[in-house]
């Protein structure tokens, strides 16, 4: 019997009061962004905001709780932009969105900073660790969002980043699930010489934690080649976007080439304020499994398709509640 769990891909919108207060405390320019050396007042503000978003997830009824990554000013590039081995350049576009981040150039082999583990430790004080989920960029995405002036070799650079991600998890508390966000697997499909490295790249990160690792993809369907290699990479869980217009391609890939034992569905739109009703979400799940009659995942994670920082807070919270309710209904009736 499939266990259905409501979760989130992290990277929450800051509560509105924190947007105002942090704007005042930190400033609005490029050099004001997070570098890992915030003042006590800034840290205290983030602490308070983290508590609020954890409470919001519990109130909504999520089965996994994230710390929200509210400090990640540079979105998924954060693990690099706070690293001393990295030079942050100009502000560049974040995928095909009206959002921007500091472009990191990795100038030497980066060592773990402890920054991410520290935030997870703080979250562990606020939520039971059996519910805790960590969220990191996958190595493909982190490489795609940055530049290599370190090893000057594409494959080697990805391994350097995978090692960094593993290192950042070393001092983390127990976490139940690790989401590795890999939108770049969709937007910039890796060449075959990199595809063959996926298994080792994900294994490097996975061995640093006893959490269930889900590689979650979004901004559309994977190419057939990438899908095949991701299935072969032997990760515990695979996440796909079933909101995007090309979701039929995702279903085709899954039907043709299979999925991992654990499936994550990007079920509700993380980039639109329209709050899909619980019945609509349940129907979407049914639509997926109607077309994949042999799929029998051990666990099914449900979430927004993308990171939700694109949304206003009120709409995001409504979406969390709708996903949690959909998971509850599916738990009752089965998928």
């Amino acid at each position: 019997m499939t266990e259905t769990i409501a979760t989130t891909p992290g990277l929450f919108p800051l509560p509105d009061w924190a947007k105002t207060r942090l704007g005042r405390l930190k400033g609005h320019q490029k050099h004001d962004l997070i570098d890992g050396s915030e003042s006590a007042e800034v840290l205290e503000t983030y602490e308070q905001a983290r508590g609020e978003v954890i409470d919001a997830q519990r109130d909504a009824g999520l089965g996994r709780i994230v710390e929200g990554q509210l400090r990640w000013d540079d979105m998924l590039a954060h693990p690099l932009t706070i690293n001393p081995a990295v030079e942050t350049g100009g502000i560049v576009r974040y995928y095909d969105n009206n959002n921007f981040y500091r472009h990191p150039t990795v100038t030497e082999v980066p060592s773990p900073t402890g920054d991410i583990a520290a935030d997870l430790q703080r979250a562990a004080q606020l939520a039971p660790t059996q519910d805790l989920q960590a969220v990191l960029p996958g190595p493909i995405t982190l490489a795609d969002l940055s530049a290599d002036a370190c090893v000057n070799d594409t494959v080697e650079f990805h391994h350097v980043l995978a090692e960094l991600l593993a290192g950042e998890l070393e001092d983390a508390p127990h976490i139940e699930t690790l989401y590795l966000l890999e939108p770049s697997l969709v937007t910039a499909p890796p060449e075959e010489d990199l595809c063959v490295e996926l298994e080792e790249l994900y294994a490097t990160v996975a061995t640093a934690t006893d959490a269930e690792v889900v590689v979650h993809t979004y901004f559309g369907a994977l190419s057939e080649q990438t899908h095949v290699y991701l299935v072969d990479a032997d990760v515990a869980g695979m996440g796909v976007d079933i909101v995007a217009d090309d979701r039929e391609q995702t279903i085709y890939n899954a039907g043709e080439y299979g999925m991992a034992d654990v499936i994550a569905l990007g079920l509700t739109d993380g980039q639109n304020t329209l709050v899909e009703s619980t019945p609509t979400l349940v129907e979407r799940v049914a639509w997926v499994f109607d077309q994949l009659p042999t799929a029998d995942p051990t666990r099914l994670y449900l979430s927004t398709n993308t990171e939700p920082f694109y949304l206003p807070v009120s709409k995001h919270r409504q979406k969390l509640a709708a996903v949690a309710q959909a998971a509850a209904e599916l738990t009752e009736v089965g998928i």
Partner: protein
Amino acid sequence: MARDVDNREQFRPAEHPNDHFILTTVVGSYPKPTWLNRIRDHQDDASYGVDAAALSEAYDDAARLITEEHQHCGLDTVVDGEMRREEMVEYFAERIRGYEFNGPVKVWGHNYFDKPSVTEPVQYDEPWLVDEFRFTDAVADRPVKVPITGPYTLASWSFNEAYDDIAALTYDLADLVNEEVAALVDAGARYVQIDEPALATTPDDHAIVGGALERIVDGIPDAVRVGLHVCYGDYSRIYPEINDYPIDEFDVELCNDGYEQIGVFDDGAFAPDLALGVVDVHDTTVESVDQIIENITQGLRVVGPERLTVSPDCGLKLLPREVAREKMQNMVTATRAVEARLDRGEL
């Protein structure tokens, strides 16, 4: 295709000193006086006594001040600096039925935008800019240009809950922009500029923007000059397609990368007039007159002087006000110098 009309000459000032006439203008936004920002910040605080009448008076004063500042710099066509607008999508979304606001969303760092949602079919309720135009027109002794956020940008920078796709929303919004332009024309406007910064980020949608422009100019008299401003991006992805747009003028941001992309347009087939950015709006260094003369001559690679308009790269609002004023002043001085050289046959 570009509108086959000649509506430039109406903007030549009576006292214009040269035979050649290169139209000078600004893209639109301008730094707000500090006092206006302070009054706005306190509008909800009863202890400051800023009621609706006081705020309205402040907007009028600021619009008058900036319009006159534009005139003092010698611009041939002026704008009020968009003193009444805070953000280029919010301002219009607040006035269009079908939009709602749900709170700020992140753009980058701690910079947010109250990104609106389209929750039902959009409708035109009341004029958006007619009062603003009438006020500025009464203050100005030069023709007034009216910048309007374009329908593709209004659609792209909103959450779309109500339409099947961005094209459908864009076209409905274009019909509303057409209504607004008609109302502005009735009020006496002769120069409008459609701002489509979103096209710079998603250039593959150029056909949607073209379709929207067809709707916008429908029924608009030839005497009304219609410009299109598209901020910095990879222009090679929308050229030569923009030659098919029904516009009189295409305004581009090329100064900020030193005219690296001017070659995109110099194929001898550029159809509309060219409005060329000749001062950088992201750099507080004020370009010298000589430097701006050099920049203006870049435009002459694409069109003759009779089809060249000169403006800053984009809105000036992020610059210190004094820097913005000096850039405009130097831009006009340089333009008149280029005209004089052309008159003398030196260019």
